[in-house]
């Protein structure tokens, strides 16, 4: 009996530690090999020779543009949808259908989003490979993340706040805007940060909708390249080991910062009531 127990716990422990070790290995390996190549020059110079030389300045700008478009479009829609679920909808068939499709949307693979974005925004709406096509595609992709985060935090707002506000003669909308949503700002922020993380990390959907231009985008209808796409291009073409590691490490750092911030906001500051 004792031997069996020891073996059982040993297997569990080893597998769990293996998981942890893998994480440390991946993050550590990329940081150790990439960090030495990240410097001011890398961050502030334009890429030269398809990224073999120079930095990734235009790519950082492109990443920011695409992500901004996505988050600016997705945030209000996500908040409004969550508000609909928790404040307006009466549990019924319509809500169930809407919820069901929101879950479905969350499960669609990114390359399908890419195909869709290409067929719809790039070709059908004639937006071409551009910041706006990619931003809109990503906006749809991160929508479920935003809805979920906002809804979770809306649910924790006590009913008594709603009653208190309504009993003072506030309308439903005033109650939502002035009392309920301010209570949820941490939850919403967490959702936005996670959405940003997903947008920055996304590759397949962006590749098919933004294209891969290396010059500085000057309008929403310019093609550009995000860091993830750049990392893919560099690694598949084997142009420069150094620049590839540096880009990978930079992505990891950004993801680490984003995750820690999201965790910090949702756990330390509490999902709610942060004044």
């Amino acid at each position: 009996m004792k031997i069996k127990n020891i073996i059982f716990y040993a297997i569990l422990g080893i597998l769990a530690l293996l998981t942890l070790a893998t994480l440390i290995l991946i993050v550590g390996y990329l940081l150790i090999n990439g960090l030495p190549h990240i410097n001011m020059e890398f961050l502030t110079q334009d890429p030269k020779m398809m990224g073999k030389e120079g930095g990734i300045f235009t790519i950082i700008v492109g990443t920011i543009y695409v992500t901004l478009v996505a988050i600016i479009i997705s945030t209000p829609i996500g908040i409004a949808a969550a508000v609909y679920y928790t404040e307006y909808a009466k549990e019924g068939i319509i809500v169930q259908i809407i919820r069901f499709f929101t879950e479905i949307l969350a499960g669609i693979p990114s390359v399908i989003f890419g195909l869709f974005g290409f067929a719809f925004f790039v070709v059908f709406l004639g937006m071409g490979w551009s910041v706006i096509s990619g931003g809109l595609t990503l906006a749809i992709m991160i929508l479920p993340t935003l809805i979920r985060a906002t809804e979770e935090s809306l649910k924790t707002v006590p009913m008594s706040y709603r009653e208190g506000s309504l009993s003072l003669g506030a309308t439903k909308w005033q109650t939502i805007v002035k009392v309920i949503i301010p209570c949820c700002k941490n939850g919403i922020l967490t959702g936005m940060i996670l959405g940003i993380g997903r947008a920055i990390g996304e590759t397949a959907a962006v590749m098919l909708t933004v294209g891969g231009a290396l010059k500085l985008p000057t309008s929403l209808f310019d093609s550009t390249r995000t860091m993830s796409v750049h990392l893919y291009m560099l690694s598949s073409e084997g142009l420069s080991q150094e620049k590839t590691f540096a880009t990978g490490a930079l992505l990891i750092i950004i993801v680490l910062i984003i995750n820690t911030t999201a965790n910090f906001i949702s756990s330390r500051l509490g999902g709610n009531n942060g004044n």
Partner: protein
Amino acid sequence: METKFKIKNLNLYYGNFQALMNIDMEIYENKITALIGPSGCGKSTFLRTLNRMNDLIPNVSIEGTIKLDNKDIYNKDYDLIELRKRVGMVFQKPNPFPKTIYDNIVYGPKIHGVKDKEKLDYIVERTLKEVALWDETKDRLHKSALGLSGGQQQRLCIARCLAVEPEVILMDEPTSALDPVSTSKIEGLLEELTEKYTIVIVTHNMQQAGRVSDYTSFFLNGKVIENDKTEVIFSNPKDKKTEDYITGRFG
């Protein structure tokens, strides 16, 4: 003595369940009316019909009329916002918003269009003085209301309610979550408030009803069993059930 609310033949259903039956009652201006009865008797439900807070609950249907100053508040054309502005409410558990003390009080006035900073400052000072909270809070008006004690929070909620200048204040067991000292502070407050306001208070606590109210209604199983001046109810009840309840034989 003016009649503020005139309730006629009120029935209320939650789906198929009838929670209030044939309620007839008058509530008088500048008086305190206490609603007593065992839990589940319908007194809180009744209270919430007076500012239509029951509208928030799905599947509620209502028959009969409730007239406020001779106008039916369940009439389609009646302005719900106006009603709630005139008929304020204080809840069982203190429910200040997670905002500053100042912002809690100006919430109502701002919603109803008061923008002038001086006027808002004045409202804050006036209402906090009315609930005897000014001295305790005047130096921390811009700190979170959640930092106040339970009793202070409840007085803040009363002040928040007064800030929209209601005519009637509905109180749903306002002291049941509070300690005895805070309770007596709020009871003392009620008397002063009747100079300007009509008060309807739901209470579990018989002594409280006896101490503070002018009129008392005894509810049982969704019906009003007896409804009279408080001293009559407590000294000379007409109905056996009222007597049993008041003397503590059940409930």
